[in-house]
């Protein structure tokens, strides 16, 4: 299963169903919703947290949370 945590730097993906109750509501409010696009901008030194662009909002979340969000990769042509 692909999640945000397994994205590589620069990769983009579409957010899938969000089922886990552990996902903070705040993240949804910031635009992390099914169907929206997510891009991994940068990974912090020591590989955590992740710096993302979700739906034009730039934010950073920890790997633990990123693992909960399923995505589908957008293949580059």
């Amino acid at each position: 299963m692909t999640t945000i945590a397994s994205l590589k730097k620069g990769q983009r993906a579409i957010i899938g169903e969000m089922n886990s109750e552990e996902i903070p509501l705040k993240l949804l409010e910031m635009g992390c919703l099914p169907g929206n696009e997510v891009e991994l901008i940068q990974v912090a030194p020591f590989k955590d947290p992740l710096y993302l662009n979700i739906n034009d909002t730039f934010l950073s979340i920890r790997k633990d949370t990123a693992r909960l969000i399923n995505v589908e990769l957008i293949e580059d042509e």
Partner: protein
Amino acid sequence: MSKQINVALVGNPNTGKTSVFNNLTGLNQKVGNYPGITVEKKEAVIKLSRNLKAHILDLPGTYSLNATSLDENVVIELLLNKNDKDYPDVVVVVSDIENLKRNLLLFTQIKDLGLPTILAINMADRMDRKGIQLDIDLLEKRLNTKVNLISARKNEGFDALKQSISAYQNISLEPCLDASSIDKTYFESLQKAYPDQDLYKLWLVITQDVNFGKTNRNRISSESGFKPKSDSEIKQLQQKETIKRYQFINNTLKETLTKDLALATGLRAKIDRLLIHKVWGYVIFLSILFLIFQTIYDWSTYPMDLIDETFLVLSEFVKDNFPAGMLSDLISEGVIPGIGGIVIFVPQIAFLFLFISILEETGYMSRVVFLMDRVMRKFGMSGKSVVPLVSGTACAIPAVMAARNIESWKERLVTILVVPFTTCSARLPVYLIIISLVIPNERWLGLFNYQGITLMLLYLLGFGTAVASGWLASKMLKIDFKSYFVVEMPDYKLPIFKNVVYTVVEKTKSFVFGAGKIILAISIILWVLASYGPTDKFDNADDIVKSSTDLSRVTDEELETEISSFKLKHSYIGYAGKAIEPIVTPLGYDWKIGIAIISSFAAREVFVGTLATIYSVGNEDEQTIKSRMSAETNPILGGPLFTFASGISLLLFYAFAMQCMSTLAIVKKETGTWKWPLVQLFGMSGFAYVVALIAFQALK
């Protein structure tokens, strides 16, 4: 008679609410706290037209009406409570043109409460550069409200905004989303149970209880046939509501907003590449800290010397020109040195806040949070703990409050516990005066000042101890917690000059009038305690000293000194100091320093003022605080009192001891129990005593 309306400024964090507030109100703002909690409350009254005034309230930033923190709770409590004296007649939602989509979520929620809600879109100055175009007329139609494009940076659009506020009664109250579409059956039964309540308000009261503890559980009970849902069902409905709102917003913006994506992210990416680089990122962060501390030290010296001299001259002036007597003594020896002991910190505090507010304003702080999160987690804290730890260099009180942004309770508690180790500005005067007495004012490699280096080492020691004790605390605390961390990474911006100035003025003012009051009061009390004694030995000091000395062998001057030190010894404060002398002697201090340490428990910065007061009582010579201190001799060892050993011991004592009543009070408030402040008081102070003891005994 002119009418006054209530206007509330609401918006996501970082949309420029405070800048907009500053622009609307100028410097006539009032800063206080919400009753019972320590969330900052900023308000001001302005004139909109000849017979309309507006009371403007800057509310804490929030992403939605689903509050998860005390700050956000303030917003929703106000908007749900018609009886609150601040309940708004009109709400202005401040949003940021670049994040309009996200900002509109909050807007639609507030509009659905049935309040007149104006949308103020800020940062219009950035539209060109980012290739953004917006159809305002269409947006007004779709959102059914007044939309104002403004720029706090350029001070544009504010007249129009004020007009929209004045005409608030014309704004439609039509909701954006039909609440019952979230879950038909549930909302219909809810409405049936409470027919005369606003449906969306009811829903918010319910979600509020779920989000924010059970305090208001009983506001909506399960009576009248209404079947409540479980917490997890409600959470799912909240998700559904959010998705529905975003559908509405996306549709609206598709019609009204166009963005040239190529222009959007160039600068951010370039600066990020450097500032969050795995090596350079840390190098730059440390260099910035180093530079800040060197600069504060260098820049403050001149104004501080000047202030010191000025108050000295003032004291002398009063002494020479007022009729001699108790009042003149009180003013020249108690009040003026006391006030001087407050004013002398103003330069450093101002410079420190200058730098902190620039770092916040530019968007750099969030990068530091991002860089430091993994590291800080090793020590039981969060990347967000960096902000409290850095603001701790100003004052532990706002720093403890800043820890509220940390989502996990354990990380937050650890941060609160260790923040008082960071070097707050109250320690700075103590450090500065002792450093200037015991560390040579010379340059190392002709470049770095030894005194500056010592100061920086003390700051690093503060951070180091904070971090190390964080590790210890996280190992000892048994608290289950979920790691949860969401940080916005704002765009880089040049700081707005006005915002920086207001922050500096406000923080300095709150220091001068807040801490200053305590310092002044203590200085006066100390002066009284040092100027009177319990026995007649004090009153007859002249005779006693004269009869016990061979008058032909001493000069008048020596006799004077002899008398005044005899008096001090037999004053109230002298007896108190003598009582604790055995405890402080092993650390290399005399009883006068002991007194200063005791009075430091009210506030550390009292230390210098206390010594100044004690040493100046009965002292006719014109001397600065520093020269008086360097003239003191050690009563037991002989030689100067402030040596390298006793100086270092004092520095370490002040670095570690918990000596601030206000911090203890705020920790009690934030953690809800006296347990944690007591742990700090005894843990930190005990540690400080041991370290200072070892240092003095090893170095002497």
